[in-house]
Protein backbone atom coordinates (compact mmCIF):
# COMPACT_ATOMS: atom_id res chain seq x y z
CA UNK A 1 0.00 0.00 0.00
CA UNK A 2 1.06 3.59 -0.55
CA UNK A 3 2.36 5.57 2.40
CA UNK A 4 0.07 7.95 4.18
CA UNK A 5 1.94 10.89 2.66
CA UNK A 6 1.30 9.61 -0.85
CA UNK A 7 -2.37 9.04 -0.10
CA UNK A 8 -2.60 12.57 1.30
CA UNK A 9 -1.02 14.12 -1.80
CA UNK A 10 -3.22 12.16 -4.17
CA UNK A 11 -6.40 12.93 -2.25
CA UNK A 12 -5.56 16.63 -2.12
CA UNK A 13 -4.82 16.60 -5.85
CA UNK A 14 -7.98 14.64 -6.64
CA UNK A 15 -10.40 16.70 -4.57
CA UNK A 16 -10.04 20.44 -4.96
CA UNK A 17 -10.17 22.25 -1.64
CA UNK A 18 -9.66 19.19 0.55
CA UNK A 19 -7.02 19.57 3.26
CA UNK A 20 -5.82 16.50 5.11
CA UNK A 21 -3.66 16.43 8.15
CA UNK A 22 -1.53 13.48 9.17
CA UNK A 23 -2.21 12.79 12.81
CA UNK A 24 0.91 11.50 14.54
CA UNK A 25 0.81 8.60 16.98
CA UNK A 26 3.55 8.51 19.59
CA UNK A 27 2.60 5.13 21.03
CA UNK A 28 4.70 2.03 20.15
CA UNK A 29 2.26 1.04 17.41
CA UNK A 30 3.01 4.36 15.62
CA UNK A 31 -0.21 3.93 13.68
CA UNK A 32 -0.86 7.31 12.11
CA UNK A 33 -4.15 8.55 10.84
CA UNK A 34 -5.65 11.10 8.47
CA UNK A 35 -7.59 14.00 9.91
CA UNK A 36 -10.21 15.26 7.46
CA UNK A 37 -12.22 18.45 7.56
CA UNK A 38 -15.98 17.95 7.80
CA UNK A 39 -16.81 19.85 4.61
CA UNK A 40 -14.88 17.45 2.39
CA UNK A 41 -15.27 14.25 4.45
CA UNK A 42 -17.84 12.65 2.16
CA UNK A 43 -15.89 13.26 -1.04
CA UNK A 44 -12.62 12.12 0.57
CA UNK A 45 -14.32 8.92 1.77
CA UNK A 46 -15.74 8.33 -1.71
CA UNK A 47 -12.28 8.87 -3.20
CA UNK A 48 -10.69 6.38 -0.80
CA UNK A 49 -13.34 3.79 -1.61
CA UNK A 50 -13.35 4.21 -5.39
CA UNK A 51 -9.71 4.98 -6.17
CA UNK A 52 -8.33 2.07 -8.25
CA UNK A 53 -5.10 1.91 -6.22
CA UNK A 54 -6.71 2.08 -2.79
CA UNK A 55 -10.18 0.50 -3.12
CA UNK A 56 -10.82 0.77 0.63
CA UNK A 57 -14.12 -1.05 0.35
CA UNK A 58 -14.49 -2.24 3.93
CA UNK A 59 -15.08 -0.08 6.99
CA UNK A 60 -14.22 -2.43 9.81
CA UNK A 61 -14.64 -0.17 12.81
CA UNK A 62 -16.15 3.15 13.79
CA UNK A 63 -15.51 4.52 17.22
CA UNK A 64 -15.67 7.76 19.13
CA UNK A 65 -13.13 9.62 21.21
CA UNK A 66 -13.99 12.27 23.76
CA UNK A 67 -11.54 15.13 24.13
CA UNK A 68 -12.75 17.30 26.99
CA UNK A 69 -11.54 20.86 27.43
CA UNK A 70 -8.04 20.69 28.79
CA UNK A 71 -5.22 22.95 29.85
CA UNK A 72 -1.97 22.39 27.98
CA UNK A 73 1.25 23.47 29.65
CA UNK A 74 4.28 24.24 27.56
CA UNK A 75 7.77 25.27 28.64
CA UNK A 76 9.03 28.17 26.58
CA UNK A 77 12.43 29.83 26.71
CA UNK A 78 12.04 33.59 26.87
CA UNK A 79 14.73 36.28 26.88
CA UNK A 80 14.30 38.57 29.84
CA UNK A 81 16.16 41.27 31.68
CA UNK A 82 17.33 39.89 35.00
CA UNK A 83 19.35 42.28 37.21
CA UNK A 84 20.19 44.45 34.21
CA UNK A 85 21.44 41.46 32.26
CA UNK A 86 19.67 39.72 29.42
CA UNK A 87 19.17 36.06 30.23
CA UNK A 88 17.22 33.12 28.89
CA UNK A 89 14.55 32.12 31.35
CA UNK A 90 12.20 29.15 31.14
CA UNK A 91 8.58 30.01 31.51
CA UNK A 92 5.53 27.79 31.52
CA UNK A 93 2.87 28.86 29.14
CA UNK A 94 -0.67 27.68 29.64
CA UNK A 95 -3.20 27.38 26.84
CA UNK A 96 -6.75 26.10 27.04
CA UNK A 97 -7.72 23.72 24.28
CA UNK A 98 -11.49 23.65 23.79
CA UNK A 99 -13.12 20.24 23.95
CA UNK A 100 -14.38 18.33 20.94
CA UNK A 101 -15.48 14.86 19.91
CA UNK A 102 -13.77 12.71 17.37
CA UNK A 103 -14.88 9.81 15.18
CA UNK A 104 -12.34 7.27 14.00
CA UNK A 105 -12.92 5.01 10.99
CA UNK A 106 -10.70 2.00 10.28
CA UNK A 107 -10.71 1.20 6.58
CA UNK A 108 -9.45 -1.90 4.81
CA UNK A 109 -9.53 -3.18 1.28
CA UNK A 110 -10.87 -6.68 0.79
CA UNK A 111 -10.10 -6.50 -2.93
CA UNK A 112 -6.49 -5.30 -2.61
CA UNK A 113 -5.89 -7.00 0.73
CA UNK A 114 -4.41 -4.00 2.42
CA UNK A 115 -5.13 -1.63 5.23
CA UNK A 116 -5.86 -0.17 7.61
CA UNK A 117 -6.15 3.47 6.66
CA UNK A 118 -7.45 5.41 9.60
CA UNK A 119 -9.71 8.37 9.10
CA UNK A 120 -10.60 10.91 11.77
CA UNK A 121 -13.38 13.45 11.81
CA UNK A 122 -13.82 16.09 14.48
CA UNK A 123 -16.82 17.98 15.76
CA UNK A 124 -16.58 21.68 16.52
CA UNK A 125 -17.38 21.30 20.20
CA UNK A 126 -18.97 18.89 22.64
CA UNK A 127 -22.32 20.61 23.13
CA UNK A 128 -24.34 22.31 20.40
CA UNK A 129 -22.10 21.71 17.39
CA UNK A 130 -21.36 18.02 17.96
CA UNK A 131 -21.98 16.87 14.42
CA UNK A 132 -19.95 15.28 11.64
CA UNK A 133 -21.10 14.05 8.23
CA UNK A 134 -22.21 10.43 8.25
CA UNK A 135 -20.16 8.03 6.12
CA UNK A 136 -22.94 5.43 6.03
CA UNK A 137 -23.77 6.45 2.41
CA UNK A 138 -20.22 5.36 1.49
CA UNK A 139 -19.85 2.28 3.74
CA UNK A 140 -23.22 0.77 4.61
CA UNK A 141 -21.60 -1.25 7.39
CA UNK A 142 -20.96 1.91 9.36
CA UNK A 143 -24.66 2.37 10.09
CA UNK A 144 -24.93 0.55 13.43
CA UNK A 145 -21.50 1.65 14.60
CA UNK A 146 -22.33 5.29 13.96
CA UNK A 147 -25.52 4.76 15.93
CA UNK A 148 -23.40 3.37 18.75
CA UNK A 149 -21.13 6.44 18.68
CA UNK A 150 -24.26 8.61 18.72
CA UNK A 151 -25.67 6.63 21.63
CA UNK A 152 -22.60 6.57 23.85
CA UNK A 153 -20.79 9.81 22.88
CA UNK A 154 -23.57 12.02 21.57
CA UNK A 155 -21.94 12.57 18.19
CA UNK A 156 -24.60 13.57 15.66
CA UNK A 157 -24.08 12.11 12.19
CA UNK A 158 -25.61 14.34 9.52
CA UNK A 159 -27.06 12.29 6.69
CA UNK A 160 -27.39 9.07 8.69
CA UNK A 161 -30.47 7.14 7.50
CA UNK A 162 -31.70 6.10 10.95
CA UNK A 163 -30.00 7.89 13.81
CA UNK A 164 -31.44 6.47 17.04
CA UNK A 165 -29.95 5.08 20.22
CA UNK A 166 -28.92 1.48 19.69
CA UNK A 167 -27.77 0.11 23.07
CA UNK A 168 -29.40 2.31 25.68
CA UNK A 169 -33.14 2.94 25.78
CA UNK A 170 -34.69 5.87 23.90
CA UNK A 171 -35.62 7.75 27.09
CA UNK A 172 -31.99 7.81 28.25
CA UNK A 173 -30.49 11.29 28.27
CA UNK A 174 -26.79 10.85 29.11
CA UNK A 175 -23.76 9.85 27.06
CA UNK A 176 -22.04 7.20 29.17
CA UNK A 177 -18.71 7.03 27.34
CA UNK A 178 -17.97 10.73 27.75
CA UNK A 179 -15.32 11.49 30.32
CA UNK A 180 -17.60 13.75 32.35
CA UNK A 181 -20.40 11.18 32.64
CA UNK A 182 -21.59 10.65 36.20
CA UNK A 183 -23.35 7.34 36.76
CA UNK A 184 -26.43 7.19 38.97
CA UNK A 185 -25.71 6.95 42.67
CA UNK A 186 -26.47 3.30 43.40
CA UNK A 187 -23.51 2.57 45.64
CA UNK A 188 -25.59 1.46 48.62
CA UNK A 189 -24.08 -2.01 48.68
CA UNK A 190 -20.45 -2.60 47.70
CA UNK A 191 -19.06 -5.69 49.44
CA UNK A 192 -15.47 -5.24 48.28
CA UNK A 193 -15.00 -1.55 47.47
CA UNK A 194 -11.66 -0.12 46.43
CA UNK A 195 -10.31 2.94 44.65
CA UNK A 196 -13.00 4.97 42.93
CA UNK A 197 -15.78 2.66 44.04
CA UNK A 198 -14.71 3.03 47.67
CA UNK A 199 -14.87 6.80 47.34
CA UNK A 200 -18.31 6.69 45.75
CA UNK A 201 -19.54 4.21 48.36
CA UNK A 202 -18.27 6.40 51.21
CA UNK A 203 -19.93 9.44 49.63
CA UNK A 204 -23.17 7.52 49.40
CA UNK A 205 -22.94 6.33 53.02
CA UNK A 206 -22.29 9.88 54.21
CA UNK A 207 -25.28 11.17 52.25
CA UNK A 208 -27.51 8.38 53.51
CA UNK A 209 -26.44 9.11 57.10
CA UNK A 210 -27.06 12.83 56.64
CA UNK A 211 -30.57 12.58 55.23
Amino acid at each position, binding site marked *: METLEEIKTRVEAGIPGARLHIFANESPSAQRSLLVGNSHALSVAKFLRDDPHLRLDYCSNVTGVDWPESELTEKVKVKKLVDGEEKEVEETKKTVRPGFLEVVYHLYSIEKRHGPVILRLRTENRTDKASVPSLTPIWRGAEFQEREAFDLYGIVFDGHPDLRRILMWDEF*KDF*PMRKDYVEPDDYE*YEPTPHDEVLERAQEHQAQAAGS
Partner: protein
Amino acid sequence: MDEGLKSELQKQGIFVTSLEELYNWGRKNSLWPLSFGLACCAIEMIAASMSRWDLARFGAEVFRPSPRQADLMIVAGTVTKKMAPQVVRLYNQMGEPKYVIAMGACAISGGPFKQGYNVLKGIDRYIPVDVHIPGCPPRPEALLHAFITLQQKIAAQELTGPGRARHLDAGAPGEYPVPQFGEHDLLPPKNPDVWQPPVPAHT
Protein backbone atom coordinates in the same frame (compact mmCIF):
# COMPACT_ATOMS: atom_id res chain seq x y z
CA MET B 1 -45.59 -38.69 62.24
CA ASP B 2 -42.74 -40.38 63.99
CA GLU B 3 -39.87 -41.04 61.56
CA GLY B 4 -38.91 -44.35 63.25
CA LEU B 5 -42.42 -45.73 62.99
CA LYS B 6 -42.66 -44.58 59.41
CA SER B 7 -39.48 -46.37 58.43
CA GLU B 8 -40.60 -49.48 60.35
CA LEU B 9 -43.89 -49.51 58.45
CA GLN B 10 -42.04 -49.01 55.15
CA LYS B 11 -40.07 -52.20 55.81
CA GLN B 12 -43.41 -53.98 56.12
CA GLY B 13 -44.52 -52.62 52.78
CA ILE B 14 -46.78 -49.91 54.12
CA PHE B 15 -46.20 -46.36 52.99
CA VAL B 16 -47.50 -43.64 55.23
CA THR B 17 -47.35 -40.04 54.16
CA SER B 18 -49.02 -36.72 54.70
CA LEU B 19 -50.83 -34.74 52.06
CA GLU B 20 -48.25 -31.99 52.46
CA GLU B 21 -45.37 -34.33 51.79
CA LEU B 22 -47.09 -35.92 48.81
CA TYR B 23 -48.00 -32.55 47.34
CA ASN B 24 -44.50 -31.16 47.75
CA TRP B 25 -42.95 -34.37 46.43
CA GLY B 26 -44.99 -34.07 43.29
CA ARG B 27 -44.14 -30.42 42.80
CA LYS B 28 -40.47 -30.62 43.49
CA ASN B 29 -39.94 -33.39 40.96
CA SER B 30 -41.54 -31.68 38.01
CA LEU B 31 -40.12 -28.18 37.92
CA TRP B 32 -40.45 -26.81 34.43
CA PRO B 33 -37.94 -24.08 33.76
CA LEU B 34 -38.57 -21.15 31.48
CA SER B 35 -36.13 -21.36 28.59
CA PHE B 36 -34.47 -18.09 29.08
CA GLY B 37 -30.81 -17.24 28.61
CA LEU B 38 -29.22 -13.82 28.77
CA ALA B 39 -25.50 -14.43 28.36
CA CYS B 40 -22.73 -17.00 28.67
CA CYS B 41 -24.32 -18.64 31.76
CA ALA B 42 -27.07 -19.84 29.43
CA ILE B 43 -24.51 -22.05 27.67
CA GLU B 44 -23.80 -23.79 30.98
CA MET B 45 -27.54 -24.08 31.59
CA ILE B 46 -27.95 -25.71 28.18
CA ALA B 47 -25.05 -28.04 28.97
CA ALA B 48 -26.74 -28.99 32.25
CA SER B 49 -29.90 -29.94 30.38
CA MET B 50 -28.04 -32.08 27.84
CA SER B 51 -27.02 -35.71 28.14
CA ARG B 52 -23.76 -35.25 30.00
CA TRP B 53 -25.29 -33.67 33.13
CA ASP B 54 -28.89 -34.59 32.31
CA LEU B 55 -31.15 -32.28 34.26
CA ALA B 56 -33.96 -34.70 33.37
CA ARG B 57 -32.86 -36.86 36.30
CA PHE B 58 -34.40 -34.20 38.53
CA GLY B 59 -37.60 -33.88 36.55
CA ALA B 60 -36.70 -30.56 35.02
CA GLU B 61 -36.00 -31.42 31.42
CA VAL B 62 -39.00 -29.65 29.94
CA PHE B 63 -37.80 -26.15 29.16
CA ARG B 64 -40.93 -24.18 28.31
CA PRO B 65 -40.95 -21.36 25.79
CA SER B 66 -43.90 -19.66 27.50
CA PRO B 67 -43.93 -18.17 31.03
CA ARG B 68 -47.51 -19.44 31.42
CA GLN B 69 -46.31 -23.05 31.43
CA ALA B 70 -43.20 -22.62 33.55
CA ASP B 71 -42.62 -22.96 37.30
CA LEU B 72 -39.04 -21.89 37.47
CA MET B 73 -37.15 -18.97 36.05
CA ILE B 74 -33.41 -19.49 35.70
CA VAL B 75 -31.98 -16.00 35.28
CA ALA B 76 -28.85 -17.16 33.49
CA GLY B 77 -26.56 -14.28 32.64
CA THR B 78 -26.07 -10.55 32.73
CA VAL B 79 -29.27 -8.58 33.26
CA THR B 80 -28.79 -5.28 31.52
CA LYS B 81 -30.88 -2.34 32.60
CA LYS B 82 -32.56 -2.42 29.22
CA MET B 83 -33.56 -6.07 29.74
CA ALA B 84 -34.60 -5.85 33.42
CA PRO B 85 -38.21 -4.69 32.81
CA GLN B 86 -38.75 -7.60 30.45
CA VAL B 87 -37.38 -10.06 33.02
CA VAL B 88 -39.75 -8.71 35.69
CA ARG B 89 -42.65 -8.80 33.22
CA LEU B 90 -41.93 -12.44 32.35
CA TYR B 91 -41.81 -13.26 36.05
CA ASN B 92 -45.18 -11.58 36.56
CA GLN B 93 -46.63 -13.63 33.71
CA MET B 94 -45.63 -16.94 35.27
CA GLY B 95 -48.36 -18.80 37.14
CA GLU B 96 -47.98 -19.63 40.84
CA PRO B 97 -46.21 -21.51 42.31
CA LYS B 98 -43.09 -19.96 40.82
CA TYR B 99 -39.45 -19.95 41.78
CA VAL B 100 -36.34 -18.09 40.68
CA ILE B 101 -32.74 -19.25 40.46
CA ALA B 102 -30.27 -16.41 39.86
CA MET B 103 -27.39 -18.04 38.05
CA GLY B 104 -23.91 -16.54 37.92
CA ALA B 105 -22.10 -13.51 39.26
CA CYS B 106 -23.94 -11.07 36.98
CA ALA B 107 -27.45 -12.20 37.84
CA ILE B 108 -26.80 -12.13 41.58
CA SER B 109 -24.82 -8.88 41.82
CA GLY B 110 -23.83 -7.44 38.46
CA GLY B 111 -20.59 -9.42 38.58
CA PRO B 112 -17.67 -8.01 36.61
CA PHE B 113 -20.02 -5.35 35.19
CA LYS B 114 -21.23 -4.14 38.59
CA GLN B 115 -19.79 -0.65 38.13
CA GLY B 116 -21.01 -0.36 34.57
CA TYR B 117 -23.66 2.15 33.57
CA ASN B 118 -25.77 -0.44 31.78
CA VAL B 119 -25.93 -3.49 34.04
CA LEU B 120 -28.39 -4.15 36.84
CA LYS B 121 -26.67 -4.89 40.15
CA GLY B 122 -28.53 -8.14 40.70
CA ILE B 123 -32.00 -9.27 39.65
CA ASP B 124 -32.94 -9.65 43.33
CA ARG B 125 -33.48 -5.89 43.34
CA TYR B 126 -36.79 -6.44 41.55
CA ILE B 127 -37.98 -10.02 42.06
CA PRO B 128 -37.60 -12.47 44.96
CA VAL B 129 -34.82 -14.97 44.28
CA ASP B 130 -34.93 -18.43 45.88
CA VAL B 131 -31.43 -19.69 45.11
CA HIS B 132 -28.34 -17.67 44.20
CA ILE B 133 -25.45 -19.41 42.41
CA PRO B 134 -22.10 -17.64 42.38
CA GLY B 135 -19.55 -18.35 39.64
CA CYS B 136 -18.53 -16.90 36.33
CA PRO B 137 -20.02 -18.90 34.82
CA PRO B 138 -21.06 -21.58 37.34
CA ARG B 139 -20.39 -25.11 36.18
CA PRO B 140 -23.38 -27.33 35.37
CA GLU B 141 -22.76 -29.14 38.67
CA ALA B 142 -23.39 -25.84 40.46
CA LEU B 143 -26.71 -25.51 38.65
CA LEU B 144 -27.60 -29.08 39.63
CA HIS B 145 -26.72 -28.19 43.21
CA ALA B 146 -28.98 -25.16 43.02
CA PHE B 147 -31.75 -27.40 41.69
CA ILE B 148 -31.38 -29.82 44.57
CA THR B 149 -31.29 -26.92 47.02
CA LEU B 150 -34.51 -25.60 45.51
CA GLN B 151 -36.10 -29.06 45.71
CA GLN B 152 -35.23 -29.24 49.40
CA LYS B 153 -36.72 -25.81 49.86
CA ILE B 154 -39.93 -26.90 48.14
CA ALA B 155 -40.07 -30.12 50.18
CA ALA B 156 -39.96 -28.06 53.37
CA GLN B 157 -42.78 -25.71 52.39
CA GLU B 158 -45.90 -25.78 54.57
CA LEU B 159 -49.36 -25.85 53.08
CA THR B 160 -51.24 -24.32 55.98
CA GLY B 161 -50.56 -21.96 58.83
CA PRO B 162 -48.99 -18.52 58.90
CA GLY B 163 -45.70 -19.67 57.32
CA ARG B 164 -47.41 -21.36 54.36
CA ALA B 165 -46.08 -21.31 50.81
CA ARG B 166 -46.61 -18.06 48.95
CA HIS B 167 -48.89 -19.49 46.29
CA LEU B 168 -51.35 -20.69 48.96
CA ASP B 169 -51.44 -17.31 50.67
CA ALA B 170 -53.99 -15.08 48.95
CA GLY B 171 -52.53 -12.01 50.63
CA ALA B 172 -48.97 -12.61 49.41
CA PRO B 173 -47.80 -10.63 46.39
CA GLY B 174 -47.61 -12.52 43.12
CA GLU B 175 -46.73 -9.65 40.84
CA TYR B 176 -44.00 -7.11 41.22
CA PRO B 177 -43.86 -3.61 39.75
CA VAL B 178 -42.09 -3.41 36.41
CA PRO B 179 -39.38 -0.72 36.43
CA GLN B 180 -39.67 2.11 33.92
CA PHE B 181 -36.95 3.50 31.68
CA GLY B 182 -35.81 6.80 33.19
CA GLU B 183 -33.59 9.58 31.91
CA HIS B 184 -30.55 8.39 33.86
CA ASP B 185 -31.45 5.02 35.35
CA LEU B 186 -34.33 2.61 35.81
CA LEU B 187 -37.19 4.03 37.86
CA PRO B 188 -37.25 2.99 40.62
CA PRO B 189 -33.63 1.72 40.79
CA LYS B 190 -34.73 -1.03 43.19
CA ASN B 191 -37.88 -2.41 44.76
CA PRO B 192 -37.47 -1.79 48.52
CA ASP B 193 -40.16 -4.39 49.29
CA VAL B 194 -37.99 -7.08 47.75
CA TRP B 195 -34.45 -5.87 48.38
CA GLN B 196 -32.80 -3.76 51.03
CA PRO B 197 -29.05 -3.19 51.00
CA PRO B 198 -27.38 -5.49 53.53
CA VAL B 199 -25.40 -3.72 56.22
CA PRO B 200 -21.73 -4.01 55.25
CA ALA B 201 -19.58 -5.95 57.69
CA HIS B 202 -16.75 -3.41 57.59
CA THR B 203 -17.43 0.30 57.82
